C-alpha cells in the first residue's frame, strides 16, 4: 500500500462523494447503507422510544402520586410498567449506544465505512419494526403485562392466556437480532478497518468501550434469546421448560434471564463510561490519565459482569455459600469502576479544564453514578438485599446507575457530537437549563424512592393504602418527573432550533478535540475521509506530526476500503464494499412477518421462512468477478493482486 502525503483535488473529491453517497429519493432511503445514515436513524428512533418510555413513566408517577388513585387500573398499570421497562432496556438504552457506535466508531478509527453495512441496515429495520410492533400491541390493549423480566409461571399460558406475553418474547427476538448484528459489525470494524498507525493501544477509549460492549452482547444476548424462545415454545406448542405442573422449573428462567440481564446493565453502562473518558479527555486538554488501566477496567468489568447474575435471586433461597460468592463478585466489580473514576479525576486534576455543556453532564454523572454505585454495594450484601430487593430502594438504585451512568453521559455525548452530526452547535445557555432541570428533577424523583423502599414500599404495585404513609414522598417523586419532562422537551426544542440560530455553525472541530472524527467536515461527507489520515498517537489531531502520511491508493470511483491487521493496523488489503441495496429492508419485512406470525401459529416459522429465504437470496446474490466481488484476494499470504488477476466473486454483506 502506498502511503505518502497528498491533498485531494476537488473533482476527485466530488467523484469520491458520489461513489459513497446513498442514492437519492424515496427508493434511495430504503436502500441506504451509509453508517452515518443508519446511525442517525438509530439515534433518532431510540430517542423517540426514550420519549415514549418516559411518557409511560410519567403516567405511572401520576398514578402513584396518591394512594388509591383511580387513573390506571391494575391491568393497564401492569402493561404500562412492563412496556416502560422493556422500552428503556431494549428500545432505548442498548440501541442508542449502538447507534452512537454505528455513527462514530468508523469515524474514530478513520474508516470509510462500517463493516457489513447491509447487515447494519437490516439491524436498524429489525429494531424499528420490533419497536413499532410493541407499541402497536400496546395500543391494541395487547401490551405485555408480566414485567420486563417476564417470570414464569406468571408468563406461562395458564396465568397469561392472552398474546401479551408472546408480544414481549418476540420483541426480545427482534431487538436481540438487531443488536447482535450491530455487535458483529462494530467488532469487525474496529479489528479490521482501523486506519494505519492506530495500534491497539491507540484506539480511543470510546471505541474500546464499544468493542467490549459488543463482545458482551454476543455472549449475553443468546441467553435471553434462548430463554424467550423456550418461553414461546412453552406457550405455543406446549413444551414444559418452565411449567412446574409438568416438571419444568421456574428458577431455570431466572438463571437464564439474569445471565443476560446483569451483563445488560454493563452493556448500557460501558459505552457511557467510554463517553466519559472521551469527553473528560477533550475538555481537560490532555491524554486520558491511565489509559491502559481504564481499558483494562472495561475488559475486566465485562468479564466480571457475567459472574454476578445471582444477586438478582438472593431472595429465592439459594445455598448460603453460593450467595457469598456472588456477594463477593458483586462487590468486586466496584473496583474497576473505581479505577476509572480515579483516572478521570486525575485527568481533570492535571489538565486544563473548560466546563462547556458536555462537561456539565459529566460532572452530573459523577454525583449521580457514584451514589448509585454505592447503593449497588449495599444491594450486593445478601442480608440487606433480602430486605431491599423488589422495593422502591432498588428502583432508586438502578435509575441512579442507569440514568447516572448512561443517560447523563449520553446527553454529554449529544452535546459533544451534535455539531459533528449536524454541523451546528447546541445553545450553551439552554444547555445549562436542560442540565439543571434534569439534574434537579432526577434527584427529586428518585432520591425519595430510597426512603420509600426502606419504609416497605414494594415495586410494581399499582396502588397502596392511605395508612401506609407513602403519599408525601410519592408526590415529591411525581413532582420531579415534571421537571425532568421540561428538561427533555427543552432539549428537543434546542436540537430542532439549533439550525436556525445565528452563529451556530460548528466547523470541523469546535471543541479542539484530538480524535479522528474531528478531522473531517461537519457533517462528514459520504465516505467520511476523502484522504484517510493515519494515526500518529492516541489523539491523532493533537499528536500527529505535520507531515503525517495519509492513506492513498483507494480508488475514488469505487467503494474501496483499506483492511488492516488486528494488532498493529498495518495495511493488509483493499476491499470493495457493497453498494446500497433495498434487500436488507425486504429481508427485515420478511423476518418481521415470520416473528409476528409465530405468535399465532408455529406454522408461521415454516411458511414465513420462505420469504426470508427469497429475500436473502436477493441480498447475497453473487456478483460477477469483474465487478470486484467483495472477498479479498484469494491467495494466502498475499495482500495485493497479481497483474491481471481478478478477485473471487462474493455476495455483499
Amino acid at each position, binding site marked *: 500500500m502506498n502511503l505518502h502525503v497528498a491533498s485531494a483535488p476537488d473533482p476527485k473529491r466530488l467523484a469520491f462523494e458520489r461513489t459513497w453517497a446513498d442514492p437519492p429519493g424515496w427508493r434511495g432511503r430504503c436502500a441506504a447503507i451509509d453508517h452515518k445514515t443508519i446511525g442517525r436513524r438509530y439515534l433518532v428512533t431510540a430517542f423517540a422510544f426514550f420519549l415514549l418510555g418516559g411518557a409511560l413513566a410519567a403516567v405511572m408517577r401520576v398514578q402513584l402520586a396518591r394512594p388509591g388513585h383511580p387513573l390506571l387500573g391494575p391491568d393497564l398499570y401492569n402493561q404500562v410498567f412492563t412496556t416502560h421497562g422493556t422500552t428503556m432496556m431494549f428500545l432505548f438504552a442498548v440501541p442508542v449506544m449502538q447507534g452512537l457506535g454505528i455513527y462514530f466508531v468508523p469515524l474514530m478509527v478513520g474508516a470509510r465505512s462500517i463493516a457489513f453495512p447491509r447487515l447494519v441496515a437490516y439491524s436498524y429495520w429489525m429494531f424499528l419494526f420490533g419497536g413499532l410492533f410493541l407499541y402497536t400491541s400496546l395500543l391494541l390493549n395487547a401490551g405485555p403485562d408480566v414485567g420486563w423480566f417476564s417470570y414464569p409461571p406468571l408468563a406461562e399460558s395458564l396465568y397469561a392466556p392472552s398474546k401479551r406475553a408472546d408480544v414481549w418474547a418476540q420483541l426480545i427476538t427482534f431487538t436481540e437480532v438487531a443488536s447482535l448484528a450491530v455487535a458483529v459489525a462494530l467488532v469487525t470494524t474496529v479489528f479490521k478497518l482501523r486506519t494505519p498507525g492506530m495500534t491497539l493501544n491507540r484506539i480511543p477509549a470510546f471505541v474500546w468501550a464499544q468493542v467490549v460492549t459488543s463482545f458482551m452482547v454476543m455472549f449475553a444476548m443468546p441467553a435471553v434469546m434462548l430463554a424467550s424462545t423456550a418461553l414461546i415454545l412453552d406457550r405455543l406448542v406446549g413444551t414444559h421448560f418452565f411449567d412446574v405442573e409438568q416438571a419444568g422449573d421456574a*428458577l431455570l428462567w431466572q438463571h437464564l434471564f439474569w445471565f443476560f440481564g446483569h451483563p445488560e446493565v454493563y452493556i448500557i453502562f460501558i459505552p457511557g463510561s467510554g463517553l466519559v473518558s472521551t469527553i473528560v479527555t477533550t475538555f481537560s486538554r490532555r491524554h486520558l490519565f491511565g489509559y491502559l488501566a481504564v481499558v483494562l477496567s472495561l475488559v475486566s468489568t465485562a468479564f466480571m459482569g457475567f459472574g454476578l447474575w445471582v444477586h438478582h435471586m438472593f431472595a429465592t433461597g439459594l445455598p448460603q455459600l453460593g450467595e457469598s460468592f456472588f456477594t463477593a463478585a458483586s462487590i468486586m466489580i*466496584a473496583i474497576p469502576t473505581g479505577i476509572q473514576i480515579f483516572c478521570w479525576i486525575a485527568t481533570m486534576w492535571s489538565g486544563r*479544564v473548560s466546563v462547556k455543556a458536555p462537561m456539565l453532564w459529566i460532572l452530573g454523572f459523577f454525583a449521580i453514578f457514584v451514589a448509585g454505585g454505592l447503593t449497588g454495594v449495599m444491594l450486593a450484601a445478601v442480608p440487606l438485599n433480602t430486605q431491599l430487593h423488589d422495593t422502591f430502594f432498588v428502583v432508586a438504585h438502578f435509575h441512579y446507575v442507569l440514568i447516572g451512568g448512561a443517560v447523563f453521559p449520553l446527553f454529554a455525548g449529544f452535546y459533544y457530537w451534535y455539531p459533528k452530526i449536524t454541523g451546528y452547535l447546541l445553545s450553551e445557555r439552554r444547555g445549562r437549563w436542560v442540565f439543571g432541570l434534569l439534574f434537579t428533577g432526577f434527584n427529586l424523583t428518585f432520591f425519595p424512592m430510597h426512603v420509600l423502599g426502606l419504609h416497605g414500599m414494594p415495586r410494581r404495585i399499582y396502588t397502596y393504602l392511605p395508612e401506609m404513609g407513602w403519599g408525601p414522598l410519592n408526590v415529591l417523586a411525581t413532582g420531579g418527573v415534571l421537571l425532568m419532562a421540561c428538561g427533555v422537551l427543552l432539549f428537543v426544542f434546542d436540537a430542532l432550533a439549533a439550525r436556525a440560530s445565528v452563529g451556530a455553525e460548528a466547523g470541523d472541530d469546535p471543541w479542539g478535540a484530538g480524535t479522528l472524527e474531528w478531522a473531517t467536515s461537519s457533517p462528514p461527507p459520504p465516505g467520511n475521509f476523502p484522504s484517510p489520515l493515519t494515526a500518529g498517537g492516541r489523539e491523532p489531531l493533537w499528536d500527529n506530526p505535520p507531515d503525517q502520511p495519509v492513506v492513498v491508493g483507494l480508488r475514488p470511483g469505487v467503494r474501496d476500503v483499506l483492511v488492516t491487521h488486528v494488532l498493529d493496523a498495518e495495511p493488509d488489503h483493499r476491499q470493495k464494499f457493497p453498494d446500497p441495496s433495498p434487500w436488507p429492508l425486504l429481508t427485515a419485512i420478511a423476518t418481521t412477518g415470520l416473528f409476528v406470525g409465530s405468535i399465532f401459529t408455529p406454522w408461521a416459522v415454516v411458511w414465513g421462512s420462505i420469504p426470508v429465504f427469497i429475500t436473502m437470496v436477493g441480498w447475497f446474490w453473487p456478483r460477477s468477478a469483474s465487478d470486484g466481488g467483495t472477498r479479498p484476494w484469494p491467495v494466502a499470504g498475499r495482500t495485493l493482486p497479481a497483474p491481471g488477476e481478478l478477485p473471487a466473486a462474493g455476495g455483499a454483506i
Partner: protein
Amino acid sequence: MAPGEVVQSVLEPAGPHAAAIRHLWLLMLWTSVAVFVAVLVLAGAALVFGIRARRHGGPPHGSEHLLGKAVGGAVVLTCIVLIGLLVASVWTGRHVASLRADGAVTVSVTGHQWWWEVEYEDVRPSRRALTANELHVPLHRSVVIKVTSRDVIHSLWIPNLQGKRDLIPGYTTAIWLQADQPGRFRGQCAEFCGLQHAHMAFDVVAEPDAEFEGWLERLRQPAQPPAGEVAQHGLELFSTRRCASCHTIRGTEAAGQVAPDLTHVASRLTLGSGTLPNTPSHRRAWIADPQKPKPGNQMPPNPLPEEEMSALGAYLDTLR
C-alpha cells in the same frame, strides 16, 4: 402501639434478624456517605485545579508520577473498604440465617393469587391449624416459616422482622424469625404476581406465649354451630350457594379447597389479604362485590337480596 397504625419498615426492627440487618444498613450507609463525600470533594478539587490551570496558564497541576501513586493509593483504599463491607455482610448473613431450633413454632405459608394460606404444623396431624392472611407469633420464640406457592412466584416479606423469601412453585424453602417486641407488623408480597400484586398483604401479630397458645388452640377448633335462626339460615345459604364450592368452614358441610379457610374469619384483622379492615360492614360489602376494592381477584360478585345478605353476614359474624 396505637390500633390501626401500620408498621412496615426496615428501619424499625422488632426482632434479632431485622436488627442485625439494620446494623449492617447503618454501617453501609455511613461508609457510603463518607466515600460519596470523598469522591465528590476530589472531583471538585480536580475541577478547580483544572480550571485554574487553564485560566492562568502555567504548568498543569501534579506530576504524572505523583498522580499515579495517588490513584494507586485510592484503589488500595477502595479494596480495603470493600473487603471490610464484604466481611460485615457475610458475618451478618451467618447471624441472620442461624437460630436455635428447640421449641420453634413451625408454620407453612403457601402463596396463592392473591392471598396467603397459613398452616401451623404440629407433630400430631389432628392438631394442625389452618388460617389465611394472618400470622401470630409468640414473643422471644423462634418461628420457622416454610414457604412455597400453589401458582406463580410470590415473596413473603415482613420488613420489621426479617428479609424476604420467594415462594416458588415446586420449591419449599424455610426462613427463621423471632419477634422480641409485641405488636402488629404488616407484611406484603414483594414479587410481582399479577393483577392484584398490590393487594396481597398480611398481618403478623406478635404476642406473649400464653396469648399465642390460646389463639392457636381456638384456631384448631371447628366452627361453633350457628346460634339462632338467622345465623342458621346464613349457614344454609353458605352451603347451598356457591360460597362452599371454594371456601371451607370446618365443622360444616362447606369444604371448598381453592379459597381461604373461613372457619374463624371474623377473628381476623383484615379482609381480601390486607385490602380492607375486617368489620361486619366491610364483610358484607366484600361479599356483594369483591371486584370493587380488589379488581381481578378470583371471587365473583354476589348480588344477594338484602335479607339473604344479612343472614349470611350474621352467620359469618359468629365465626370467631
